[in-house]
């Protein structure tokens, strides 16, 4: 059977002030269905860039390589098509949308995705019921739905809001980019539970993190280490603990 997600030889660069900057330099990564994989790696190694390229951000130019998502050519799809196909990205820095009501935004998103998936749209009442329940399980204050998207949210509230969106959009593949950063211990568990609730033989996740703590709750299947735009090492869950204790230096020099 083909992999759920298959990234081969992915190279991507960005035009930064007229200078071509190569960021991804041959990323190879496969994720089977039902598994949770983790990417760790030093700051600036290209983790967020990989998540953006997978989600379809146009500023990054893919110069070579391919990404197959459930047999489809992911790179040929528009960002919203990828979302409809089941891809979700929890942003490292969620964006503020001034004047846009959070519940309204969520409902527009959910219905756009439902429409594309051939499901019936939710009316305001049905949606609000769902959203309120989801917010409650994530221990979010009810007024978060009434506020403007991420405007004035604390760091932790923004991350929870990302998980709320994920819960409502029901993705088959979720990328969480440092969703655990800046969270207190309780929030960390809430986020992990959010992901665990989605776990199913048809759901996979790619979790970007710097900390072992989240992985205690998540129980990942595989750990990958990224450095200088490539996956330099992969292993079982014990690899994360090792990195947590010893740091990256040893692995980086071994890989060099």
């Amino acid at each position, binding site marked *: 059977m083909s992999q759920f997600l298959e990234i081969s030889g992915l190279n991507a660069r960005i035009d930064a002030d007229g200078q071509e900057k190569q960021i991804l330099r041959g990323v190879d990564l496969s994720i089977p269905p039902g598994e949770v994989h983790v990417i760790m790696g030093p700051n600036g190694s290209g983790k967020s860039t990989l998540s953006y390229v997978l989600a379809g951000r146009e*500023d990054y130019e893919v110069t070579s390589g391919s990404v197959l998502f459930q047999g489809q050519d992911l790179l040929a799809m528009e960002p*919203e098509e990828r*979302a409809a196909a089941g891809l979700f990205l929890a942003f490292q820095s969620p*964006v503020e*949308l001034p*004047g*846009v009501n959070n519940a*309204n935004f969520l409902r527009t*998103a959910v219905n756009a995705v439902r429409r594309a998936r051939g499901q019936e749209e939710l009316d305001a009442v049905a949606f609000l019921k769902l959203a309120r329940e989801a917010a409650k399980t994530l221990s979010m204050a009810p007024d978060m739905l009434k506020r403007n998207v991420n405007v004035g949210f604390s760091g932790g509230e923004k991350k929870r809001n990302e998980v709320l969106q994920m819960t409502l959009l029901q993705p088959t593949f979720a990328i969480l980019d440092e969703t655990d950063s800046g969270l207190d211990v309780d929030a960390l568990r809430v986020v992990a539970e959010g992901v665990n609730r989605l776990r199913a033989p048809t759901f996979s996740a790619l979790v970007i993190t710097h900390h072992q703590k989240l992985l205690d709750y998540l129980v990942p299947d595989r750990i990958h280490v990224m450095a200088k735009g490539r996956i330099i090492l992969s292993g079982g869950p014990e690899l994360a603990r090792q990195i947590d204790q010893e740091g990256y230096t040893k692995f980086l020099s071994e890989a060099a």
Partner: protein
Amino acid sequence: MPAATETREAVEKLGQSTYKWGFETDIEMDLAPKGLNEEIIRLISSRKEEPEWMLEWRLAAFRTWQSMEDPKWAKVSYPPIDYQDVHYYAAPRTKPGPKSLDEVDPALLKTYEKLGIPLHEQALLAGVEPAEGERLPVAVDAVFDSVSVATTFRKTLAEAGVIFCPISEAVREHPELVRRYLGTVVPAGDNFFAALNSAVFTDGSFVYVPKGVRCPMELSTYFRINARNTGQFERTLIVVEEGASVSYLEGCTAPMRDENQLHAAVVELVAMDDASIKYSTVQNWYPGDEEGRGGIYNFVTKRGACRGARSKISWTQVETGSAITWKYPSCILQGEGSVGEFYSVAVTNNCQQADTGTKMIHLGRNTRSTIIAKTISAGRSDSTYRGLVRVQPKASGARNFTQCDSLLIGDRCGAHTVPYIECRNMAARVEHEATTSKISEDQLFYCRQRGLSEEDAVGLIVNGFCRDVLKELPMEFAVEAQKLLQISLEGSVG
């Protein structure tokens, strides 16, 4: 392709096809010959069966107009207008002033139906009575080219003592009221277009709310220009007596035509002690095609006088149409403690030009004004906010707050803010804030990652940007305005 480029290109694709109100109604018309002279003015006046004083008033305005020139100070450009090449009167060929909807030409009713305007009060009334707090019926006056074709709910309003009728009828039926107020807020010689309007105005609405009466429903007028080469010169006069209040909305559309059409309206509002007037506009005249061919020249003078103490006049406008908009709804804050408000969203796309804003003239003590102006420019359009806040020496304790925000879509459009502040009283406080922003790639990408099309994303962000203004619209029209915003930027993506 970066989203910004795509957005820009898509906005440019926006053409005639997106203007959904561009159809033409085939109807027999009574058309005055082209040109403007005393003869034509006499003709209009006699068609309207006006009293002698009204004709004299028009003729005086005409003579004033002849000595005036087009204003040149606005940041808009257009070829000279040939005022002799315009029909100044066009009316559907039915008896003027139909007594009931049954007498109205069915083709006309169909037009309004297509526009989604609820003229059929029978149908509305036949339905279940709206529950408390639910959507209330709206009384509508429909103006087709030069005449009002139907005014609904007149009986219900009359029971409350409210007069809501075509102004031509008011001139005949309520001459004392019209004479007392007409031209007292916008004098006939106020400016070039106001003088022109005073000479040739054809129809529009008259509203009178007596002392202590809260008008029991929203009033609205829909204007439709249909005939070719005609100008529309409507005149609206709203007088609200002591302690009374009214909420009034105007909407407007026109067929798509290659030539430009002139629309020069005058609106006058008068608010006495503790009276309040809420005047909302959803302006959707045909904006012309993507090359800038055709479209309405919208040269409008709107002014409200807060004559009484603690009176309040609030202008809310959503301006998406017209090739050129020249419009500054203003408040003369005379009464002590009176309040003026101006909430505006102006959207320009393709080759549209808008020079719009407000004037708040503080004459009385402790007068207050608020200005919130949101400008959205796309394509090659150009938009200017022009606002004047003047505080006269006697206006101690006057306060003004102004907030002007511009949102640019693409990099070939322009947005300008021209605030004039004249403060002649040391004990007054005037604040001005302005921002300019672009829809960021981050915001667009965030929305699209959540499954929204780029178009929906732009719509959502733009609506968010305009929220402070949209929330001032009566509920019934807020939804309409939101859709309109989205449609006028349609194709802005994808």
